[in-house]
């Protein structure tokens, strides 16, 4: 499990404008430099934030993905996906 790497990707989306635009344009290539499991890669590329959250990724950081519209996410679908998790 590489939760650290997922959190790092989220943070780089916020802080690194170059990485952000690369990820917006070619997400698969952009994240290829991070050591992720096959499953994590699949969840990220499909914008499955609920599954990433269940793996232990940080929710505050995950929301950066919606703010900057990467991996098909926006605030609206992010809200629905995350709220589908039973607490």
């Amino acid at each position, binding site marked *: 499990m590489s939760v650290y790497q997922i959190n790092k990707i989220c943070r780089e989306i*916020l802080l690194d404008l170059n990485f952000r635009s690369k990820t917006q344009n070619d997400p698969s290539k952009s994240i290829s430099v991070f050591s992720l499991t096959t499953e994590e890669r699949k969840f990220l590329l499909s914008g499955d934030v609920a599954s990433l959250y269940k793996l232990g990724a940080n929710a505050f950081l*995950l929301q950066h993905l*919606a703010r900057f519209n990467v991996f098909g996410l926006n605030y609206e679908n*992010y809200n629905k996906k*995350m709220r589908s998790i039973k607490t």
Partner: protein
Amino acid sequence: MAEIVAAFGIPHTPSFVATVAKEGPEVPVAKLFQSIKNYLDDVKPDVIVKFDSDHWNTFFYDNWPTFAVGISNETAGPIDQTPSMPWYKVPVDESLGQHIQNVGVNNGFDLSFTKEFLIDHSILVPLHFLTPNMQIPIVPIFINTFVPPMPSANRCHDLGKMVRKAIESWPNKKRVVIMASGSLSLEVGGPRMFEGKTFGVPDPIWAERVVKYFESSNINELVKNSTTEQIAHAGNIAGEILNFIALLGVVGEKKPIFLETQPELGNAFVAWRLDK
């Protein structure tokens, strides 16, 4: 010696900046900050010490301190690109920061430090409204309020007491203000967000209780009840209460002279006068 003249507990909700830019100074949140600003201006501070939650911007999991002091001449931000906020340069009081670290390490608080750092909305939203010219130097004291294991409420309260001792032994005739910011119950980006929003307030009853503790200056009860479980129940960002608890370690058992709330956001605006 330096004198502690006032303390302020306020929110740092990032959207306030765009709201006030759009809707003007008559909007309720602008008036709340104006009330706090009036108290701040009244006490004529020379320096502001700020208990702060970095939101994974200044620090990250590669290097994450429990307590850290920013010791520098200058910082800048918002590193997290708060909508509608300009890029600010902010003076930092290096001498007071170094003094607080020295006193801390000599009194059982092994404070980390950073000498080159940028800051996020958690410091700059309050300063944007309170010291928009950024003329007053700050000393940030970062507390890990988000990443388990967080320091206990009791430990943060003791941190505040130590900081009080440090400031009062700082051999400079300066007027010092203490600030802390955050929400009392808040979930950002997690499953307990409100529908269609980016945040939620999972435990408004806890937020209300906290406000009562402020009102009655019942710090011991606040510290006792701010358990890890209670904080987790109040939201993934509710650890910001630890900033307020550190602030109360400085304030002591004084009653606030101003207290207003925004229950829909889990927020409180509180002011204490501490000058003699």
